[in-house]
């Protein structure tokens, strides 16, 4: 398999007259942490949903883990993990029950499921909470749990849609440690965020404005290019030109 895990060409999504995603193209390498930045309404979530096989592109093409986003949406789903903006595990199931459910859905064997569950619970120091209903966990814990469940089947790519929104700084730190660990194991991370300190942690960053990608490079080179001290300044410079969202 090639080292390009996500490859997108002229991807466009139109809702009526509104062009949510306008002709975007980029490639993501295996093991990269790819930061997908943009103001609210810039089209990040829409683009991500197309890559996850949740939404059909209006035009353009793309492959994720070697499968076509137009035709092989269901194949893509076997090879990716996804964590949506809204917490979407089952609140009325326990931590372990949620893990088992998603493990079965991805076809893990019973033995493998138990091993994996133990491994993930240990990774999170969650062993004591395994029989707690997910609904009663604090937000930060829920987000970490969502992340590890998205990795339960060892996907090639994990899509994270604002995973740390509303999470405290300490938990955010821990969350990014989880991300790093997954990336070290060769998993590609595709992440959207509004925290510019998080953008600094990414291998490469793209910034979307009004449905288009305006900038794409490593954080260091972006800062040089816009002669800025931080990603925050880069983002402000670019996003100032936005006409929609806010």
């Amino acid at each position, binding site marked *: 398999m090639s080292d390009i895990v996500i490859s997108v060409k002229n991807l466009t999504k139109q809702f009526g007259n509104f062009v949510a995603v306008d002709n975007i193209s980029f490639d993501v390498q295996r093991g990269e942490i790819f930061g997908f930045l943009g103001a609210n309404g810039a089209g990040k979530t829409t683009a991500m949903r197309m890559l996850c096989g*949740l939404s059909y592109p209006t035009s353009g093409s793309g492959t994720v883990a070697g499968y076509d986003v137009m035709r092989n*949406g269901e194949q893509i789903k*076997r090879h990716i993990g996804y964590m949506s903006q809204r917490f979407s*595990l089952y609140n009325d199931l326990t931590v372990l*029950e949620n893990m*088992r459910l998603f493990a*079965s859905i991805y076809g893990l064997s019973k033995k493998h499921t138990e091993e994996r569950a133990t491994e993930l619970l240990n990774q999170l120091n969650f062993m004591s909470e395994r029989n707690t209903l997910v609904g009663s966990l604090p937000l930060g814990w829920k987000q970490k749990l969502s992340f590890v469940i998205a990795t339960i089947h060892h996907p090639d790519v994990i899509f994270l849609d604002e995973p740390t929104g509303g999470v405290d700084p300490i938990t955010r730190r821990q969350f990014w440690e989880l991300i790093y660990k997954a990336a070290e194991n060769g998993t590609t991370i595709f992440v959207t965020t509004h925290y510019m300190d998080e953008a600094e942690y990414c291998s490469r960053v793209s910034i979307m404005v009004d449905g288009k990608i305006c900038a794409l490079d490593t954080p260091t080179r972006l800062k040089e290019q816009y002669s800025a001290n931080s990603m925050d300044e880069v983002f402000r410079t670019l996003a100032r030109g936005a006409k929609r969202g806010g």
Partner: protein
Amino acid sequence: MKVFIALLQKEFLQIRRNSFLPRLIIAFPILVMLLMPLIMTMDVRNVNIAIVDLDHSSTSHRIASHINASEYLSLAQSTAEYPLALDALKHGDIDIIVQIPNNFERDMTISTPERISITANAVNATKGSMGLQYTVQTIAKALAELQCEKSPINVQELLTVENRYNPTLNYRYYMIPALMIILFILICGFLPALSIVGEKESGTIEQINVTPISKLTFTLSKLVPYWIIGLFVVTVAMIVARLVYGLSPVGSVATIYFGAILFIFTISGFSITIANFSDTMQQTMFVMFFFVMIFMLLSGLLTPIDSMPQWAQRFTLLLPPRYLVEILRSVYLKGTTFIELWPNFVALGIFAIFFNTLAALTYKKQA
């Protein structure tokens, strides 16, 4: 298959953990079957009669005592002034006024007497017309009795009446099958839709949609729990009908189960189809209520299809409950067999396949 079992486990866990649903599923059939047949009745009873007796003869007294003795009528007022009775009718104290004219008895023997006049309050058309009929019959009976005291033949004895299949004309026996269907609609029609839309509202369905789960597996995992619950509901309803109302099917219980299962398939498939097209609980509930109203009022559950206009009768062919109510009533009361009812089973079978296929097809994982 493994995926399906995992999903099914999840559904049952969720139903069990719900603080409200398991109680509802048990209490609903029992309450509906216990209370509704006692309360809902189309029998017209307690028709209040006022007699305006201008005759004061033995004939008029005979009529009054017949009215008083009737099971359906009760003599509420006896007066000599029609306006007084009319006033009572206006206030709703009286439903029907019977006025017996002056010298009625005397004139009856010699010539054609002045007629007895009957005035009914017809605001409630059913009560008015049924009450009127009972009154006319009662008076006719009283007069016939008088007549035959003078002649050797009793007109009444020339007739024998038999109510086949429901000998006591018990309205409950007609209602119980309809109530069973209403229960299926409420439980197996609403709950699967609410379960799907609930996942849409909480966002969990998105996590499912991003997995390789097949549409059919997911749809079935939403349907099967309610099929099982539906079977439980049929059983409870039949037991209550037996224990409380002494109604057990003349025909075979298996035929009833088979019809009920096909109907439960149909209505739950219908339910999921509606949910697939809705984004919120509000939309689902509103659309479901619209169809449920049509199902309840136009499928012959409460009013006979035979009395509908021709075009409406043809329209009822599109309503699944009409086939099941026919099955349940004829098996319960007449002992009709499966073979005789086959067109109804075929119709329900077609509906079941149609709606469940539609449910699986309209579920969109990718928009």
